[in-house]
């Protein structure tokens, strides 16, 4: 009989267990908060949050649809993190990606896949700047990327507002605060549904974007784990001096890593706005999707495959959250979601707790055996 590996040494299982427990704790705290805010409706609210996603095929379709951009923003943050960079600029890159994709769709009349490629280019360009500043002048990428979030957002708004053809008003609609409906402007730019809509009860949300995102996640895993490029990037992230000693061009890798991270976020923007269901609205605040990429990456411990699951989870909670209206205000719901995500990100802490617990248990078992 082969001896089974002790639980305490199975790192993979412990990581997953830690994430699951953290999520459970997060949900519990969310529920307590609901009880405090509105005791009579807490049960209804919680069950709405937890069941909506699986409640109907339509909603499940929405979960998958929202998971795709979240996944890419998570991959973006996680990828940069592996190289030792904190990409807080996913939001700006995401916005740029969306903008490039929409230009491709509405102005250039390109097919959907070309628009997606353009979104990568847009995000990638927005990733270059923090990378360049970091590599050449050692400016902290957190500062530059936050600045570029705002620059990106306002630049896109400015460009859109001055390009009448981009706006819905140019295509027979009355509102000029958002981009044109792709169904009118260029149906070929809408990401195909590949029959999934039939499977999901004619859900307007579902399309192949979640599969594209999963494919990209697997690709990222492959790059990080199996290629010399990934080896170099991780070496730079773990020990910049040693990678310099090994002849690795650290500055080149910082820039490349930020371009790739930017392209990932940008692709997320493309996937979100090329579904044909949501139009880009000219707002005065930075898009939250990019920031949601941070907990997605944290929850997955920056592991690309883990990102697939963490983004699905956060998307699920968000879809469930929006179903809590009107019993709870949208602000309350956002707080609850934030609490759940925040505690869910405690996975690392939880990991330590589990390890300690397992050791104690193992110690007891040993004593019993020896006694």
């Amino acid at each position: 009989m082969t001896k089974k590996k002790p639980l305490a040494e199975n790192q993979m299982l412990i990581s997953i267990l830690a994430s699951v427990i953290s999520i459970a704790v997060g949900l519990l705290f969310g529920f307590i908060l609901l009880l405090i805010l509105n005791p009579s409706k807490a049960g209804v609210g919680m069950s709405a949050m937890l069941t909506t996603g699986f409640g109907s095929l339509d909603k499940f379709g929405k979960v998958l649809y929202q998971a795709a951009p979240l996944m890419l923003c998570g991959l973006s943050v996680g990828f940069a993190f592996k190289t030792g960079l904190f990409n807080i600029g996913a939001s700006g890159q995401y916005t740029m990606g969306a903008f490039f994709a929409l230009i491709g769709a509405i102005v250039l009349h390109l097919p959907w896949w070309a628009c997606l490629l353009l979104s990568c280019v847009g995000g990638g360009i927005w990733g270059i700047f923090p990378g360049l500043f970091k590599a050449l002048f050692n400016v902290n990428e957190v500062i530059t990327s936050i600045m570029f979030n705002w620059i990106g957002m306002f630049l896109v708004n400015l460009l859109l507002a001055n390009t009448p053809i981009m706006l819905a008003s140019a295509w027979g609609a009355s509102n000029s605060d958002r981009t044109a409906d792709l169904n009118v402007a260029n149906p070929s730019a809408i990401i195909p549904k590949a029959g999934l809509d039939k499977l999901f009860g004619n859900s307007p949300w579902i399309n192949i974007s979640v599969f594209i995102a999963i494919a990209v996640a697997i690709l990222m895993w492959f790059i990080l784990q199996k290629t010399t490029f990934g080896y170099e990037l991780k070496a730079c992230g773990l020990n910049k001096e040693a990678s310099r000693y090994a002849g690795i061009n650290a500055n080149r890798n910082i820039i490349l890593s930020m371009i790739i991270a930017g392209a990932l976020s940008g692709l997320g923007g493309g996937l979100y706005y090329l579904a044909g269901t949501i139009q880009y609205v000219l707002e005065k605040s930075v898009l939250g999707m990019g920031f949601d990429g941070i907990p997605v990456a944290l929850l997955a411990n920056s592991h690309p495959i883990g990102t697939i699951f963490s983004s699905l989870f956060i998307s699920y909670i968000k879809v469930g959250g929006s179903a809590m209206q009107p019993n709870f205000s949208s602000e309350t719901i956002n707080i609850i979601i934030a609490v759940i995500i925040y505690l869910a990100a405690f996975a690392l802490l939880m990991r330590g707790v589990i390890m300690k617990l397992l050791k104690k248990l193992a110690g007891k078992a040993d004593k019993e055996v020896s006694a």
Partner: protein
Amino acid sequence: MLHITKEFPGIKANDDITLQLKKGEIHALLGENGAGKSTLMSVLFGLYQAEQGEIRKNGKTVHIKDPNEANRLGIGMVHQHFKLVECFTVLDNIILGVEDTKRGFLQYDSARKKVMELSQKYGLRVDPDALISDISVGMQQRVEILKMLYRDNEILIFDEPTAVLTPQEIKELMAIMRGFKEEGKSILFITHKLQEIMAVADRCSVLRKGKYIGTVDIANTTREELSRMMVGREVAFDIQKKSPQVGDVVLSVKDLVVASKAHNNNAVKGVSFEVHAGEIVCISGIEGNGQTELVYGLTGLEPVKSGSITLCGKDITHASIRERSKDGMSHIPEDRHKYGLVLDYTLEQNMVLQRYWEPEFQNHGVIRSQAVRKYAQKLIDKFDVRSGQGPVTIARSMSGGNQQKAIIAREIDKNPQLLVAVQPTRGLDVGAIEYIHQQLIAERDAGRAVLLISLELDEVRSLSDRILVIYEGEIVGDFEKAEMEELGLYMAGAKRQGKEAAK
């Protein structure tokens, strides 16, 4: 400490070890790298909990759960890698954790007074207002010692305190330790330098591979016996080597100038020398005389200000690190944690750190993991690199000696024309030192050029075919064979060859 056992995944670091420390003695703890010395002391200091065994102080059983508990019991420790807050001042670091406060405000004046008194009493010179990041390693160590004294500790643990010190500083430290002994304090002194034990310790306990070997009185023992106990076999102190078969010039350095990072002066001021195939040339000098910068300039870690470097006839003055590596330069770096290894990578990933891009290990950018595993296993076997889990061991979890062996394996197996070895045996035990010396000589005999940079005079004398003495960024002496005393004078700048001497 009675019957202490401590296990880590894959390794039994301490196996039934008993150690007794008397009041007012200096007790040395001797063992190879990875023998479990540091682990045992960490158990005593409360950083680790032992699975078995008990600790008694003055006859009473004590449970040391954490370092605070150890402190209350009067046990203090100077770690091998100092635990200081870099951006705090010396005084801040000393009082950290035992701050004296009045209504929430720090009482700096009384603390300063006490620190200065202690500093004067034991001759521990420190500047209380200097930042840790600005002071020398030696002074950092004095801060660590003052930390223990400030807490009125009676049992002082020194974990390899001399590994980072210059010979002068070591001498000072020994005197300080003797002073503590006279005060009635007990000292546990972890080291693997035999001459230090012979010089300062009263008794010595020896560990080998996690097991307790024995305790001896220093008065009744010899260096040879101690090393036999530690390694488990006879160790050759004097290295046998054939006379060198000197070949063509491999490395030629002309008027090399390298800027200093610390100050505005140049650290290397117009150095010229040559290294031939089949010889070991040693650059010897007191720490901080430009050796580090010279190596950085040679290996490409820092840009060269002026002058030229030629490797096998090719000008590499401004070549990238990768190009130098391709042209046949191997570099065993001074700081193995900072440069030599990616500590969170596995052993096998570290083994290909310089070569992962070669066709042998990658195919169109995809790493051939089978080939890497096989290669790493080959090096592990060939160079006897010991670790908990073989090729997949995380480098951080390996002992210092085995980390160094891994680096040496990697650099030697690259088949370099020139091997630049900087302090290759720093912090290692005699067994590992002997092994590394043999490897360097084998490289020489295989017709490679070896440039050794070392602070250890013993090492310089026994290995080198030619000795260059560096003083304040200049080469002041070039010897085939030299007397120790003579070398010392050159190193201290009291004598120099060439133009000055001719005057």
